C-alpha cells in the first residue's frame, strides 16, 4: 500500500482505487468494515469530504455497502467483480500498450510470447 497521494489526479479516485486494491489483495476481506472517512482523512491527511466521495463511489458500484449507524462494509462478491474490472483495465493499460511498443520495435508475436514465458519463469 502506498501512502503517497498523486496531486495530478483526483484524490477521491485514488482513495477508491486503494480500497479496491485492499479488497483484491485480501487486506479487506468481504463483510469486513472499511475505515471511516475520518480515519482515511487523518491517515492520508486529506479532506474528509474527499475521502467520503471516494468511499461513496464504491458504494454506488455496489462494492461497499452501508450498515446504518455502524459504517461501511465490503459487499459479498465484491472481490470477483473488481478482479474482472481490473482484467479489462489490464488489457487496455498493459497489453495494448505493450503490443504498440512491440510493433514499433519490430518484435514479432512469437518473440513476444517467448519474452512473456521468459519473464514468467523468473
Amino acid at each position, binding site marked *: 500500500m502506498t501512502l503517497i497521494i498523486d*496531486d495530478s*489526479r*483526483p484524490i477521491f479516485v485514488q482513495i477508491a482505487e486503494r480500497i479496491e486494491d485492499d479488497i483484491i489483495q485480501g487486506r479487506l476481506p468481504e463483510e469486513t468494515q472499511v475505515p471511516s472517512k475520518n480515519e482515511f482523512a487523518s491517515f492520508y*491527511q486529506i479532506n*474528509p469530504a*474527499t475521502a467520503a466521495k471516494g468511499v461513496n463511489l464504491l458504494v454506488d458500484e455496489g462494492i461497499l455497502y452501508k450498515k446504518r449507524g455502524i459504517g461501511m462494509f465490503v459487499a459479498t462478491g465484491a472481490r470477483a467483480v473488481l478482479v474482472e474490472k481490473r482484467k479489462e483495465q489490464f488489457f487496455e493499460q498493459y497489453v495494448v500498450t505493450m503490443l504498440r511498443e512491440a510493433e514499433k520495435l519490430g518484435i514479432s508475436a512469437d518473440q513476444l510470447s517467448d519474452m512473456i514465458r521468459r519473464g514468467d519463469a523468473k
Partner: protein
Amino acid sequence: MMNNVVEVKNLTKSYGKVTAVNNVTFSLEPNKIYGLLGRNGAGKTTIMHMITAQLFATSGELKVFGEAPYENERVLSQVCFIKESLKYPDNYMVKDVLELSASLFPNWDKEYANALVQDFQLPLKRRMKKLSRGMHSSVGIIVGLASRAPLTIFDEPYLGLDAVARAMFYDRLIEDYSEYPRTIVLSTHLIDEVSRMLEHIIVIDGGKILINEDADELRGAAYSVAGTANAVESFIAGKKVISREPFGGLLTAGVFERLTETDRKRLESLGLQTAAISLQQLIVQLTNKKLETKGGSRP
C-alpha cells in the same frame, strides 16, 4: 438565499489609483476547507481583511453569516482570523493570550488548547515578545484551532515554523475539523503542503478571481506536452495554453484542458510526450503570466 458563511458580490478595494481587489464575487459554504491561493500582492490579504471587518470595501456587497460584519459583535464572535503579524500587548504571556481568546470565542475548548500547548511545547509563562518567531506562530495556530470558530481564517500562519511543526498543524487541523466541521480558509503559498486538505480552491491574481473550483476538479485538468518545437506548436494551436518553455529546438507547453482520446492519438502520431500537471504546478503556471511572456519573448 442559501445560508452561505460568506457572500461577496462585486467587491472592490482601491487605494487611490491602485485597485487591490477588483470586482470580486464569490461565496463560502458552511463546513468546507477553502484554499485562498495566489502570489504575494495578489489581493488575498485585502479580501480577508474586508471579510473580518478590519478594512472597509470601496464598493460592493459583503455579508458574513448573512450580516454586514462591521462592528457587528454577533458576526465577529463567530470569526477567528489568524495572520502572521498578530500583535499582543507587551506584557502578555502565552497564558494571557489563551485566556483572552477563551473570553472572545464562545466555542473555545480549554482542554484542547492545553493539549496543543503540550504538542507545540510552548512555555505558558513566557512573554509573547520574548517568543521565537516559530513559537509566536504556534500560539496563533493554537488560538485558531481551539477557538473552533464557525469561520476560521489562517493567513500564512506558520512563519518560522519548521516542517515538523507545520506537519503537526496539518495533522491537528484535519483531525479536529473531522470531529468539529466548520468553515476554514487557508491562505498560503505553500500549495503543495496544503492542497490535499482543501475541498475548494479560489485563486486570486492581480486582484481578480482566476479560479473558483472544487480542488479535485483541478487535479488532472491540465497536462504538459513536450517535443520538438514545431510538433508541439502544431499540437497546441487553438488550445488553452498556460505556459511555454523553450529549450533549444524543443518546447514544453502547459495546456489547461482535459486530454481527449483524439488528443492522445495526435500526440502519438506527432511523437510528443505528455504528463499530467499537478494542482500546484497548475496554479504556479496560471499565476506566472508575466514571467512566461518574458521567457517566451526570448529568441
